[in-house]
C-alpha cells in the first residue's frame, strides 16, 4: 500500500512489489543461497515436511571470510575500499552531549514485529531507559522514575531502570516499537553515516552508537 502510494506520488520511486499474491511472494523469497542453506532443490519440497537449516557458524571450517581465508593485518581489500591497507587511527566522533546512547535489539521483539501482539504486552508493557547507578545518583533518579532523555534531535519521556548492566556514561534503550506508546528511539538518532556500512550492507547505515544524549528527572 505504501509502495503504491509512493509510486502514485512519484513514478518509479519504490521498487517494492505492489500487488502480488502471497504464494508468488513466498517463491520470490527463495534464492539459491536459501536453497543451499536448507539443502533442498525447490520450495515445493517443503510441502512434504519441514527441513532444518544448516547452521552457519563463522570460522567453523578454520577460515575467515577474507580473500586469503586468514586473518589479514595487511588487507588489499581495505586499501581498495578505505584507502589504507594497515589499521590507522581515525578521529572518533566528538561527543555532542553528556551520555552515549546505545539502542540494541531487544529479546522481546524482532525490530518492530510482534509487539502488536496483546499477550506480549503483558510481559513487557513499556519502554525503559537503563542507567548506571553512578549516573543515576548524579541525576537523583531512582528505578521507575519518569525521566526525559533528550538531545538536539528530539526528546523521549520514559521510565528509568537503575542497573549495573550498563556502563557509566552510557544510556541504553531498546530499539523496539511498543504497542500504544509514542516511544521511538530513532527520534534521538541523527543522520551521520557509519564508516563501514556501505561495505557490510550495501548502503551507508546510520552510526547508531555515535548518538549522544542527556537526561533529567521529570
Amino acid at each position, binding site marked *: 500500500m505504501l509502495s503504491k502510494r509512493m509510486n502514485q506520488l512519484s513514478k518509479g520511486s519504490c521498487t517494492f512489489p505492489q500487488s502480488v499474491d502471497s504464494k508468488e511472494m513466498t517463491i520470490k523469497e527463495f534464492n539459491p543461497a536459501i536453497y543451499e542453506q536448507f539443502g533442498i532443490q525447490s520450495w515445493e519440497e517443503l510441502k512434504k515436511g519441514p527441513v532444518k537449516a544448516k547452521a552457519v557458524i563463522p570460522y567453523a571450517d578454520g577460515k575467515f571470510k577474507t580473500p586469503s581465508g586468514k586473518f589479514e593485518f595487511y588487507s588489499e581489500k581495505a586499501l581498495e575500499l578505505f584507502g589504507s591497507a594497515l589499521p590507522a587511527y581515525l578521529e572518533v566522533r566528538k561527543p555532542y552531549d553528556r551520555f552515549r546512547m546505545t539502542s540494541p535489539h531487544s529479546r522481546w521483539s524482532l525490530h518492530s514485529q510482534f509487539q502488536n501482539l*496483546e*499477550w506480549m*504486552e503483558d*510481559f*513487557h508493557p513499556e519502554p525503559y531507559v*537503563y542507567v548506571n547507578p553512578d549516573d543515576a545518583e548524579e541525576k537523583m533518579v531512582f528505578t521507575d522514575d519518569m525521566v526525559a532523555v533528550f538531545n538536539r534531535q528530539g526528546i523521549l519521556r520514559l521510565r528509568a*531502570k*537503575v*542497573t549495573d*548492566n550498563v556502563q557509566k556514561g552510557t544510556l541504553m534503550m531498546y530499539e523496539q516499537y511498543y504497542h500504544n506508546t509514542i516511544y521511538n528511539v530513532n527520534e534521538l538518532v541523527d543522520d551521520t553515516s557509519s564508516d563501514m556500512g556501505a561495505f557490510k550492507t550495501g548502503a551507508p547505515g546510520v552510526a547508531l552508537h555515535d548518538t549522544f544524549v542527556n537526561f533529567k528527572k521529570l
Partner: protein
Amino acid sequence: MQKAFLVDGSICLGCNTCAMACKNQYHQDQGVTWRKVREIGAEDYLIDNNNILPTLTSYQKAPKVSMPIERFYFSLACNHCENPACVAICPVGAHTKDPETGICKHDQSICIGCGGCVKACPFGASKFNTKMGRAEKCSMCWERQEEGKTTACVQSCPVHAITIIDLHDPKYKELRSDPIGIDYAIDAETKPTTRFIHPFMPKEIYRQPKG
C-alpha cells in the same frame, strides 16, 4: 508424593519463554498471566503491581539484595502449597489438592468468582479473570502430566531452569525454600513447595595494568 517446581535462578536467562508457553497453552486472556518471571533485586515491595500480597496477614518477606536489575530471575507460578489457602477458603470446592500428586488444581467450571482465593493466597497465584468473572491459576498442567507429558513451562525452557521434582524424595531435602530479592512470603503457613537455587554474582577478574 508432592510434585513441586524447582527454579534455578543461577541459570535462568529471563527470556519469559516459560510464561509465554503457559499463556499460549491455556489461551490466557490479556492481563492474566499465571506464570511470571520475577526480576531479582528489582522489586520494591508494595510497588510490584503484579503481585501485591493481598492477604491481611503480614508475612516475613524474602531478604532484599543489591543485584543489578535484569540479570537474575526466578520464574514463579502457583507454589502448590502443602497446606493450600485456596483449597481451605473455596466455598464450592473448585480448588482441590490432588492426594496422589500434591498438585493444587482449580476447576473453572465450578468457580463462582467470589475472589476468596485471590485474596487468601499469600503469593497472588490465583488471578481474577475479569472477562470470565472467575478465578484461574496454574494447575501444573496436570492433564498433560497424566498423559505422560511434562508441563508447558518445563518443556519450553531453553536452559532447563525449571524442573518438576518430588519433594518427598529424600534427595531433594536440602533444597532451599526461601528465595532472595523478590516479594515472597517466605514463612507462609501454607508451606509453599517451590524450591529455589539461588543466583550468585560472577567472580570478577581484572587484568592488572602494568606499573
